[in-house]
């Protein structure tokens, strides 16, 4: 069930656009922000609010890579492993995550604290290796730094 706030927000979004289709993407963001992912129930609800068939809601949400269809942890780590970051040691960072938190790419920690996605270049090659935690950006990572940073996310 979407919260009252989310429903209200989606209603406001709907009014901004000429047709329901156009309001679909921003509406899905609202849901993902609230739940962390898009459950089938939430997709159905969005369809009902916007009067868009649920098949279309699902179709659109599976087309765009930024929408998640499985629950994720409270914090999403997006770690870059592309060329520059790889050269600067992102592999050892992956190992740390695995050893310390039992976290593998596309996985979630048992306590639901972290999820990990491996990224292709997040545009920080000059200060590689780099990652995003939720919407916070962190670069010049070392084995020590990454642990210190992550400890701030409970």
């Amino acid at each position, binding site marked *: 069930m979407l919260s009252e706030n989310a429903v209200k927000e989606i209603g406001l979004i709907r009014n901004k656009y000429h047709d329901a289709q156009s309001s679909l993407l921003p509406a899905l963001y609202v849901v993902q922000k609230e739940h962390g992912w898009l459950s*089938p129930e939430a997709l*159905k609800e969005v369809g009902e609010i916007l009067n*868009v*068939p*649920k*098949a*279309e809601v*699902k*179709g659109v949400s599976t087309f765009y*890579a930024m929408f998640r269809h499985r629950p994720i942890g409270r914090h999403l780590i997006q770690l870059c492993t592309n060329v520059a970051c790889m050269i600067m040691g992102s592999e050892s960072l992956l190992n740390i995550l695995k050893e310390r938190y039992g976290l593998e790419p596309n996985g979630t920690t048992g306590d639901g604290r972290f999820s990990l996605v491996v990224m292709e270049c997040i545009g920080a090659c000059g200060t590689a290796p780099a990652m995003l935690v939720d919407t916070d950006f962190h670069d010049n990572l070392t084995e020590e730094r990454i642990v210190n940073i992550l400890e701030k996310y409970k």
Partner: protein
Amino acid sequence: MPKDIIIELTINGKNIKAEQGMTILQAAQKNGIYIPNMCYDRRLKPYGGCRLCVVELEGQKRLFAACSTPAEDGMIVHTETPKLAKARKTVLELLLVHHPLDCPICDKAGECDLQDLAFKYGPSQSRFTAERKHDPERVDAPIVERNPNRCILCGKCVRVCAEHQGVGAINLIGRGFKTKVSPAFEETLNCEFCGQCIDACPVGALGAKPYRFRSRVWYMDEYEAICPYCGCGCTTNLSLREGRIIRARGKDGIGINEGNLCGKGRFGFDYIYSENRITTPMIKKDGKLVPVSWEEALQYVAKRLEDIKGKYGPSAIGAIGSQRCTIEDNYMLQKFMREVVGTDNIDSVARFGYAKAQKALEKAYDVDFMPIKWKAPLNADFMLVVESDITSTLPVWGLNFIKAKNDGATLVVADVKETKLARNSTQWLRIKPGSGTALLNGMMKVIIDGGLYDKDKTSAVPNFDALTAGLKEFTPQAVSNITGISEDAIISLARSYAYPGKRLIALTSNISENTKSMNTILAAANLAILMGDDPDTVQVPAEFSNTAGMWMSGVRPLSGGKDVYDMLYEPGAVKALYIMGENPIVTFQDAARVEKTLKGLELLIVQDIFLKEAARIADVVLPACSWAEKEGTFMSATGNIQKTPKLVAETGQSVPDWKIFRNLARVMNKDLGLKDITAIRAAIADMIVSGETKDIRRSFNPASYEVMETVSEEYPMFLVTSNILQHSGALSVLSKNLDSVVSDAYLQVNTKDAKKHGIHDDAFVRVKSKRGEVYLKAMLSDEVPEGTVFAPLHFAHAKVNALTYPSLNGGLPLVAVSIEAA
């Protein structure tokens, strides 16, 4: 874009003309030039997904997709060059990477676009290798099977379903190679099963289950016929193998439907193969129907009719015609009755349906018959649909409302149910059941009080004062109480309706619908006249394949004879009844009363294709040919008279209805003078004229709002009845295909009401009205609001008509019921 601007361009060296706004592909097609294409569909917005339609434009380096590039004046286009052949070959190669190449067992083989194009342009081998798709086929849903492996992801099915059909049951789920056409969550497909997606699919990825593995396309012959179901009069293309119809398709551009069909037309043809068909004449002997020869049966009918005529006079004999039988059949029925029996007691079920519309329009415009205009919705700016599920009753015509809305017109739907049109509307007003008449009256009151009507045109129309007097009580406040919508909503609806532009009101009038009456149609006509609009801004279609034709061929009392109300609800009004192609015990309201009247007759003759309720209690049963077993003509709701051919052999000893009357007349020593279908056609040619030629005389007719039954403590809810999309009267339930979609009656109950009464989904509910009680399976749904339940009438054994009652004219036959978990 203005259509009338003509541009000129050159395609493959040929100068052609096209309308501005056309794409290159459309311009080419219009001029008979073929450009390969796989994702283009005339009915849909350009998509440009498959890239097979690429063409070269002189002066341009890159290739252009013809389906999504507008044609321009002076353009020089090439559609077949080595460069294009190479591009198309590559596209096909890429499509074939994942395609299973299981043509030998694919039902599409022989008429598959991919096969044909690969043959024309394609390589025999792909340079690319990758994993072939190997998803399981999905055959779990009724009617529609999906084979995702054969899918080329052109998206036509998805777009037809959403854009054109207004449903959106399926979509392209996922991205890249893994994309699949599927319902949202890979669940079993649950849609309206129109099959439009199947016809649209260029390959064998979607199929009709009833046709699965039944034939190869090259073993079949295809014929055009007219669909036997509703008043749209769609042309359906029937494929026959060894004398049997095995599939029906719509063919792009063919018929008034231009290739669209609904599920009834596409899958419902198999009713003619029902096990219930009557194969020989039968006479009741010692209380049992026993097979006899035609000779014995006709002799018997002749003698009994003569006896009754001798004893009580000809007016003791009556007949009921059929909206499903051809014009020829109905014409011969009334001719036989009038000339051989000598009675004018001839009528049909249309008395409670289309005849109400007829009567209303006659009062309002003084015309006898008002055909609908197929394209009327497409010419309107503002459409108001009052308590009518048009996409269920006349499904393909209903699509025009969706199209008009998609093209920018306003569609307002006033209905208690969340119908498909309501879902596709600009605004849906959920009014209380049966309150449409009051809503229309309320709109007129606002319009008159605000001086928004056409004063010039109405000044000459009689009865304006009576109209305003009649509207006095319909203040926004009063109408808000009746309809349950706000005063503001009523006022703003009236104002936007009165806003300059092309208006349209559409509603249906069918026996199965109990939320409208003659007065609803009168009110609609009053409103149109008030606004100074033409009569064709009020669109009321005739319901079935030949409702209009039956009416025009004289199946109704013409000189004071008894109508169907007298014959079926007034025991003793007639002593003998001849019923052709109708099962009054199921289709007519208050079924118990009808059955009692029929049982009290001295002679009941039923001439039909099925042995159903009425036939079982008849004294004589005569086997008639079904629609595909005889030649004949139908008149559709648009007034089109269309021939439909004999395609399959007669079942058993069945005979076309018209021929039975010809033969019976001969046995009774009368010759009706018409020995074959050509002679009948000649005889009726001048009798059937469409109502358009006559001059129109407008008048206002105050339409009161009369509810015949209200809710009470004992019966606190309203029961709404009507046709549902997958069925049509009591005929379609004999189609196994359609039965696989909806096979049983049900009662739609709002989830909150269900909770209140402890009713669970799919569990039985006892439904009671003053007249009787029935048990129905509950379907919990928010398509109906609290306080209202809905049931379809098609299913004989469910006996929903035990609850209902008839209304001939202005009264609304709303039914108050109580429900409880059984």
